[in-house]
């Protein structure tokens, strides 16, 4: 399951003078679930639209390993846009059959597939209703059904759950969890929690460039840093004074602690990024005892993907 499915090389897109995507490279391995992460406006949607062939890139190319020469790469892709738009006068069943026929399925095959998929996404009861009356969550699920109708090698989704209410979100996430064991999935999101929950690999992009990419596990282990959060008693000036002095001392380089790499005071919380967890814990406790700092909570843990994301994207 490690064969390469798709490779993106030097993909760029400019709109006039605005460079939306600046030479992006990444590849997708077969069977993986890849999240394209980035803040709003980073170029996620533009990248995805170029992958699906809806937007011609200014430069660069997208290539599929398994594509026979002359074959349309669109045959391998199933695409679900952020807000899928359908023909409101069609029924759910009609639309999925239509999508199947467009992908080259025969009449009876398309009908069977449509029935199976609508059942699967939980729209069997609404199959005969007109799409104009579908809710946002139902449309998203129908979008998933029509994207899967031709058993694509790669399912591409643009912000699949961003526009949904918590219930619809749960439902779609549950479906995605099932699907990722069956096909290769690429989705974009700005919700880190979803990415952490679902994906194997992440590609973080920032203002049109790849800021960081790799498997979630390796990124975690490489960039994971021990962090200590100390909550101080706000009313107690002694504690706050100590914290301010401590932060100032470390930042000015006046006193460098080998166990500490970063210190920051946010309100009444002191955030410490440690170099070595065990040393840090020991040294900090000694420091606290020496100055008899009154604190209300001390939390020791590791930086989350969100911290990493903020660090990568926020620069």
């Amino acid at each position, binding site marked *: 399951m490690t064969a390469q499915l798709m490779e993106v090389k030097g993909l760029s897109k400019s709109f006039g003078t605005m460079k939306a995507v600046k030479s992006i490279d990444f590849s997708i391995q077969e069977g993986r679930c890849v999240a394209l992460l980035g803040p709003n406006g980073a170029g996620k*949607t533009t990248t995805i*639209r170029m992958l*699906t*062939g*809806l*937007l*011609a890139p200014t430069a660069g190319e997208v290539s599929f390993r398994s594509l026979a020469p002359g*074959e*349309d790469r*669109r*045959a391998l*892709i199933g*695409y679900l*846009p952020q*807000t*899928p*738009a*359908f*023909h409101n*006068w*069609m029924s759910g069943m009609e639309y999925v059959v*239509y*999508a199947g*026929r*467009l*992908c*080259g*399925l*025969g009449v009876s*095959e398309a009908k069977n*597939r449509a029935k*199976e998929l609508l059942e*699967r996404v939980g729209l069997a009861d609404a199959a005969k209703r007109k799409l104009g009356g579908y809710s946002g969550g139902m449309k998203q699920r129908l*979008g998933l059904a*029509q994207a899967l109708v*031709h*058993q694509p090698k790669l399912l591409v989704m643009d912000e699949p759950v961003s526009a949904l209410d918590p219930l619809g979100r749960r439902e779609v996430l549950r479906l995605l969890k*099932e699907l990722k*064991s*069956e096909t290769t999935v690429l989705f974009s999101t700005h919700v880190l929690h979803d990415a952490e929950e679902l994906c194997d690999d992440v590609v973080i992009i920032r203002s049109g460039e790849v800021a960081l990419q790799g498997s979630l596990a390796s990124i975690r282990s490489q960039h994971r840093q021990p962090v200590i959060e100390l909550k101080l008693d706000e009313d107690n000036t002694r504690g706050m004074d100590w914290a301010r002095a401590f932060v100032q001392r470390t930042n000015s380089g006046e006193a460098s602690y080998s166990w500490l790499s970063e210190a920051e005071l946010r309100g009444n919380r002191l955030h410490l990024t440690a170099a070595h967890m065990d040393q840090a814990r020991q040294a900090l406790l000694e420091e606290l005892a020496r100055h008899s700092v009154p604190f209300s909570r001390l939390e020791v843990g590791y930086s989350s993907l969100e911290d990493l994301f903020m660090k990568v994207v926020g620069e």
Partner: protein
Amino acid sequence: MNGANEVYRGTHRGAEAPRSATRSSGGAVFLTLLGKECLELLRSFKLIWVPIVFAVLGIMQPVLSYYMPIIIEKAGNMPEGTVIEIPAPMGSQVLADTLSQFGVMGILILALACMGIVSGERNSGASALVLVKPVSYASYILSKWLSIMLLSWGSLLLGYGAAWYYTWLLIEYVDVVPFLLSFVLYGLWFSFVLTVTLLFSTALRSAAGAAFTSLGAAILLTVLAGLIPKYMAWSPGALTGLAYQAATSPGWLQMEPASWWAVITALIAIAALLAASVVLLKRAPARD
């Protein structure tokens, strides 16, 4: 959950067979697209009201011509004793008048009915979902074009046929040859104008813009052909005049070489406009 996975995997293994068939079934994809367009025309009731409007327009002309003396007499507010002599209209003239009715009202209705055919889907994003599938851009445009052609030729045949029938009933029999010839020439003019509408529907965001640009182009071409017939006889704008001549001349119209050119340029222009629409669509299949 596992059961569902099994089903999916089971069918997945057999998925190679239909995919290899996919490449050879471009025709089936085109028919699917065309079927969808026709179903849309039907469900949006365009396939019903457009022909009805044409039929009403077509019937109105001979009926009005027939009753004109009575209408003037009853509603004319003429002083007592006025004698009005209105020569009985010629059947062929009534048909030509019907055509000019279609040339104004008919083309307006058709252009309004078709103006959003591409831009509507593009603006909503519905076209994106179709064009990420292995569907050729040409068959997308051609299916839309063919549905417009079915609607316009069908409506024109119904309306013009009704005019011909009522002219026969009320006024006089007009030979089939001038009727059919003028029908084909006018149909070609309609096809040309509506292909321009299709192009602008692909090029412009606004549907109304597409309708009025193409109507403007149609008016410009007819006016030019009327003003300087010597130099514009080859343009598609000359087709309307040619159709009136065909309707009023007995038997086959003696077409001059320049008139043949009007037909040929119209056909070439339609092909070129379609090709341009495909290119425009290819450049930006969907908008955000």
